[in-house]
């Protein structure tokens, strides 16, 4: 089956193939994406992020089932870290999603982060477009287990849910500047464990300190990822947040910002590549010169860019 018509029909093989081409940065990937672009924009993207071991995969598993019960098609992109040394990766998110595999309305793809540092992989942005064009109603993106500063998920998701677990107490204080600021929904998972209520209090206190009083306060929900307890509420909350975003025009705003960023990044990427390849010799000569202190790198860069304008 040809890839583009295949994807538009939701054929999983075609979806899988294009995502591989994107991951390998193959030339034809971009041409295919150009053809698919006009079919995107219908899916709601949902980011699930949180520290390692918080239960992100288990929550994705239960949520995906909930979406299916409501007759929605679901795409899942689950990202795990790539080793910076070997380039290899162990992708284990599917272990928690075994019973989703044979559902026709679900497509799951595991991805290595392949050097990206913000909790996603470079290819995940375009992979979402593929799933969107393939007719998924919801696309769930599960990030790498994050620490404080991996917040790239806001560049990709319409709605971000941050999964935290009890026993982190002071850690909530520690992470308040990074991932704590990007959540539309807080999920306190493993809430059958000691300290769940204290964690909720800590999150609430943190939110109360927020300067922006006009901002809607993100809801905080309790779940148990081993049994699925609380997932129905989480599902309902996601739908509510989605409705708010749509009705207030926020969704369109978010997407506009995102496209603007993407466009800038593409310009940077394409432009940089052109400059680097057409000024290869000069860059090499200036490198030598800077090494011998005959020129400083600042002046060299300006010199090369001035020439690039021609």
């Amino acid at each position, binding site marked *: 089956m040809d890839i583009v018509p295949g994807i538009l029909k939701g054929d999983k093989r075609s979806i899988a*193939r294009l995502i591989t081409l994107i991951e390998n940065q193959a*030339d034809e990937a971009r041409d295919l994406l150009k053809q698919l672009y006009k079919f995107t924009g219908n899916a709601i993207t949902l980011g699930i992020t949180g520290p390692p071991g918080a239960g992100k995969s288990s929550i994705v598993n239960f949520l995906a089932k909930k979406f299916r019960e409501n007759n929605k098609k679901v795409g899942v992109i689950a990202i795990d870290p790539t080793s910076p040394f070997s380039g290899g990766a162990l992708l284990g998110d599917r272990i928690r999603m075994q019973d989703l595999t044979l559902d026709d309305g679900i497509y799951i793809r595991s991805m290595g982060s392949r050097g990206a540092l913000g909790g996603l992989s470079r290819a995940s942005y375009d992979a979402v477009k593929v799933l969107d064009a393939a007719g998924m109603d919801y696309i769930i993106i599960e990030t790498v287990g994050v620490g404080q500063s991996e917040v790239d998920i806001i560049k990709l998701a319409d709605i971000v849910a941050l999964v935290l677990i009890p026993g982190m107490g002071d850690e909530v204080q520690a992470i308040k500047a990074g991932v704590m600021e990007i959540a539309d929904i807080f999920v306190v998972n493993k809430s059958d464990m000691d300290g769940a209520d204290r964690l909720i209090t800590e999150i609430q206190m943190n939110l109360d300190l927020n300067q922006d009083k006009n901002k809607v306060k993100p809801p905080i929900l309790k779940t148990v990822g081993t049994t699925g307890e609380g997932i129905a509420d989480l599902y309902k909350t996601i739908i509510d947040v989605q409705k708010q975003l749509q009705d207030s025009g926020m969704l369109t705003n978010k997407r506009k910002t995102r496209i603007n960023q993407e466009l800038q990044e593409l310009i940077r990427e394409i432009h940089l590549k052109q400059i680097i390849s057409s000024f290869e010799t000069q860059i090499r000569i200036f490198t030598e010169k800077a090494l011998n202190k005959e020129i400083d790198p600042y002046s060299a860069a300006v010199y090369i860019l001035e020439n690039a304008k021609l």
Partner: protein
Amino acid sequence: MTGSKTIRVLIAKPGLDGHDRGAKVIARALRDSGMEVIYTGLRQTPEQIVEAAIQEDVQVIGLSILSGAHNFLFPRVIELLKEKNAEDILVIGGGVIPEEDIPGLKKAGIKEIFTPGTPTSAIVEFIKNNVKV
């Protein structure tokens, strides 16, 4: 802008067999040799394995089995791959598999069988030599 191609491998445990130490060791060795390894966990049906392999677009499926049901489960995976037009995926197997069963499994389409004692480097090398990237 053709980038590098990473070999993707699905490591799967078909059937009712709860022992995955071996599978995990292999998964780790393949990761350390630069491959992306998808591990799907215990007790997978051949249907689940083949579907996951297609969704993940892997070039290799590594089946690990210690329960003795390899003569049924391994060929079943090959059969399903054929049904889905995915027979280009290389299938290898490992675990406690008697010598005398190996020729039959290979005939069924399993490219190689690795029994206990095989150095992990041999498996890495076999994959690298047999996968078209």
